[in-house]
């Protein structure tokens, strides 16, 4: 029976980042460390004298990131991806746990210190229409993050930033409505780059874009990482996008990381039943597509609304949907434990799941 006796130790163990030449210094201090992060939200009271119900959006998330790497967060709506992004961006205070960037605990900083620290982490949002103020010129939009740090060379920084994303200096005089969706997302990326951040948190950066434009933006993100050694925390529902851009993937389910590893590992040897279901659900295009008739269909996990009804009080959150479920799953929360080098999963039966083709 493979139950890890020390879940604590397993969950704070730093995961070796793949695909990055680890210098001895960067291996010691990670760029970003998230430890036991918990976030609860209070819901409106249903009755006057009843306790306000709460949603446990994050239920103990831990991971570390080395500089220059990229981590993709995948999971369905309600899994806590965006909540995690807001804690990492210090837009909200976590209920418990710590977010440490470059060795500084973000929630221990004074407001002024935090404002100054923000130059090191920037965010790119999903909707390139909603995230740019339509009444401001591009130059002002892109320069905005500099306002907090009184940069003297704002104009040349804007030009430099626009150049990095493939826009012209003259575009600074134009307004957002003059640009296409893909170009607007480039502007949003230029705005994030202007403070020369170490970490960029991108929440669904390409899901509002058309396929051909999406490819251009993904290539751009890839180029910028090589050019500036920036670190990406990428949130996406599209596993193919995460696979393309990231060297680590963390799968979130009901506020916990249920599996983490390189995309290759998750793609070839997913050890958590939920990751298996996610991978199986990705529509594939091969040259001989076959319509999926009811008769040759594999069993799939039933869908349950995660936040509201699907999460049991005890045991594994995924158990109600799990095709590998056994009695133990209803009793004990599985710890996130090392399955192999650089591969963690939170399932009592991970080894069996990894080996078996079908439940």
């Amino acid at each position, binding site marked *: 029976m493979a139950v890890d006796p020390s879940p604590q130790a397993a969950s704070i163990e730093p995961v070796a980042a793949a695909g990055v030449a680890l210098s001895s210094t960067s291996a010691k201090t990670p760029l970003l460390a998230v430890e036991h992060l918990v976030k609860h939200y209070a819901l409106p009271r249903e009755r006057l004298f009843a306790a306000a119900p709460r949603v446990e959006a994050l239920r103990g998330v831990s991971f570390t990131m080395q500089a220059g790497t990229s981590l993709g967060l995948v999971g369905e709506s309600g899994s806590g991806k965006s909540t995690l992004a807001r804690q990492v961006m210090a837009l909200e205070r976590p209920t418990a746990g710590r977010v440490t960037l470059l060795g500084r605990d973000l929630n221990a900083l004074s407001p002024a210190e935090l404002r100054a620290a923000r130059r090191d982490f920037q965010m790119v949002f999903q909707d390139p229409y909603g995230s740019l103020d339509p009444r401001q010129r591009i130059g002002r939009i892109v320069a905005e993050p500099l306002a907090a740090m009184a940069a003297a060379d704002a104009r040349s920084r804007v030009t430099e930033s626009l150049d990095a994303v493939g826009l012209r200096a003259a575009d600074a005089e134009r307004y957002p409505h003059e640009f296409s969706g893909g170009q607007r997302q480039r502007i949003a990326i230029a705005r994030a780059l202007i403070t020369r951040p170490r970490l960029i948190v991108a929440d669904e950066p390409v899901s509002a874009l*058309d396929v*051909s434009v*999406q*490819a251009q933006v993904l290539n751009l993100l890839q180029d910028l990482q090589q050019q500036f050694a920036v670190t990406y925390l990428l949130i996406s529902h599209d596993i193919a996008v995460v*696979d393309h851009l990231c060297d680590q993937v963390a799968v979130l389910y009901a506020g916990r990381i249920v599996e983490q590893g390189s995309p290759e590992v998750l793609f070839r040897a997913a050890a958590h039943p939920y990751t298996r279901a996610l991978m199986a659900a990705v*529509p594939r295009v091969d040259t001989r597509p076959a319509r999926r008739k009811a008769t040759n*269909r594999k069993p799939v996990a039933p869908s349950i609304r995660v936040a509201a009804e699907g999460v049991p009080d005890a045991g594994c959150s995924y158990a109600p949907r799990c095709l590998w479920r056994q009695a133990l799953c209803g009793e004990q929360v599985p710890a996130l434990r090392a399955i192999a080098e650089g591969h963690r999963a939170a399932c009592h039966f991970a080894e069996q799941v990894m080996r078996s083709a079908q439940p």
Partner: protein
Amino acid sequence: MALLEVNDLRVTLPTPRGPADALRGVSFSLERGETVGLIGESGCGKSMTALALMGLLPDAARPRGSVRFDGTELLGLDDAAMGRLRGRRIGMVFQEPMTALNPLHTIGRQVAEPLRLHRGLSADAARAEALRLLDQVRLPSAAQRLDAHPHQLSGGQRQRVVIAIALACGPDLLIADEPTTALDVTIQGEILDLIADLVEARGMALLLVSHDLGVMARTVDRLLVMYGGSVVESGPAAAVFEHLAHPYTRGLFGARPRLGAPRGSRLATIPGRVPELIDLPPGCPFADRCGWAVAACRAAPPPPIEVEPGHAARCIRLDAIAAGEPPHAVGPAAAQAA
């Protein structure tokens, strides 16, 4: 006679810069029990085509050509007649299930509405039928959900309700416009399988509109690839994916990130961007972004050229592309634009 015959459908829309052609001669037909996918990027005309079939074009739009549904011409049909057809013989499923449902009414009432309106069922009979439909779309614990409001359901459950409403009167044609775009990937698969099962079981025709090649690959028999308001390639889905005959189809396919691709590989991009409708060139709409374009491409809109029987592409360079001619660089101005 085909169930649906669309012939040279053209739609003109007014824009601040004068009238623009949103559809430029779309023709296709759909047999009973057949599933057809309309694929393309924003602005290609796929949703406009779907709206024209349902008689839901914006007021200022001027359609021409012909849309015949089971022998009846739909263009120019008055609102009352179109309303009788919609919901009863043509079912619709849209992208965003939250806006498609009325937040103030219960699920049961909304599923029962078309039954009472079109089939004249009594309140009790309609409620019983609504329950049967909700079971059929595999809504969990449907009996309790009859009195629930839309906000109490998840996105996937809401989309199941929308499908139940679309199917209520046993339509001959189901039009689904990006039915799974707003849903999680695990739910997406279930909804697509549900639609495929229901279409198969009821012998309905399905017109699926989507930008996602993967969604198409698992759902439809035949594919229409749209670009710049016209169908640039059409054929059996398997053949379209196998040949990637039209340069635009090829570009769409290459731009898609694929699971398991080697680390650090770059995605192929289509140079330039989709032109505004009003700026579409007189010849091939894709010529300015195409690596195989020659002078003749810009002279006149290319006719459909047969790739195989039943599979055609509007491209005069098909032979050269199939023979493996490498694409040439596309103009620097076009390549610069995002």
